């Protein structure tokens, strides 16, 4: 057991456009009453009474996801690193060391684009100068790996 410090440099980029004004979309991401409606993926609930949100740098972001089929629970504890309403949210998960950045762009016409950038950065890369190069090198990492997997072995 190497403890909570060990992390993996996986990276994920995810973008979605919503038909709603930016202020509302942002509020959904920091309000337990809203989060409970969507935080769990398919077949998983996120009970409102078990969500804790303190949206300020250093504040907690805690959720418990409950599997509807067997009741198993996935608690997640995170800390906000940045809360810039209504543009940007950054939080860091304690156990996985994963950092998630959510960026909210006002597209006009009551449309909002949300970009999720999720990174597992290993300790040696956490210095800012190293991080910049590291993230560049991992750009389109998922697409790249998917491409490799699609290649037939000879």
């Amino acid at each position, binding site marked *: 057991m190497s403890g909570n410090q060990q992390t993996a440099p*996986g990276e994920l980029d995810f973008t979605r456009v919503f038909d709603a004004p930016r202020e509302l979309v942002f509020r959904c991401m920091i309000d337990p009453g809203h989060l409970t409606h969507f935080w769990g993926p398919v077949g998983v609930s996120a009970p409102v009474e078990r969500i804790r949100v303190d949206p300020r740098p250093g504040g907690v972001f805690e959720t418990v996801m409950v599997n509807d089929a067997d009741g198993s629970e996935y608690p997640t504890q995170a800390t906000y690193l940045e809360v810039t309403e209504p543009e940007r949210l950054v939080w860091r998960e304690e156990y996985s060391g994963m950092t998630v950045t959510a960026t909210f762009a006002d597209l006009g016409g009551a449309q909002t684009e949300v970009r999720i950038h999720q990174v597992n950065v290993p300790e040696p890369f956490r210095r800012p100068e190293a991080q910049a190069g590291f993230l560049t090198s991992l750009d389109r990492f998922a697409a790249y790996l998917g491409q490799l997997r699609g*290649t037939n072995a000879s």
Partner: protein
Amino acid sequence: MPPAQERLDATFAALADPTRRAIVARLAQGDATVNELAAPFEMTLPAISKHLKMLERSGLISRTRQAQFRPCHLERAVLDGAVEWIEEHRRVWTERFDKLDAHLHDIQADPAEDEERT
């Protein structure tokens, strides 16, 4: 940390280097010897060997013990594990945002519902 997570960490750490990713990309097309793998790089054989050792430790590649030239072989299942990690997180965000999309439509269609449902 579960063993699967440790394996993933080792895989991602091994793939964090561009030379090692290029080696993996080459091996995705078929087994190759150290000399063949070194050819595209301006690197000494010991430097390439160091990268291969790290890939081998991560489980991403294996090397035949008996053959003289010990060709390197890509362990696809390990690479798949890394791809699946990314796909799993992508799935969670996709489903989460599908629900958020529906929720946003609900509360904008009937703002009072926002209060009722919370």
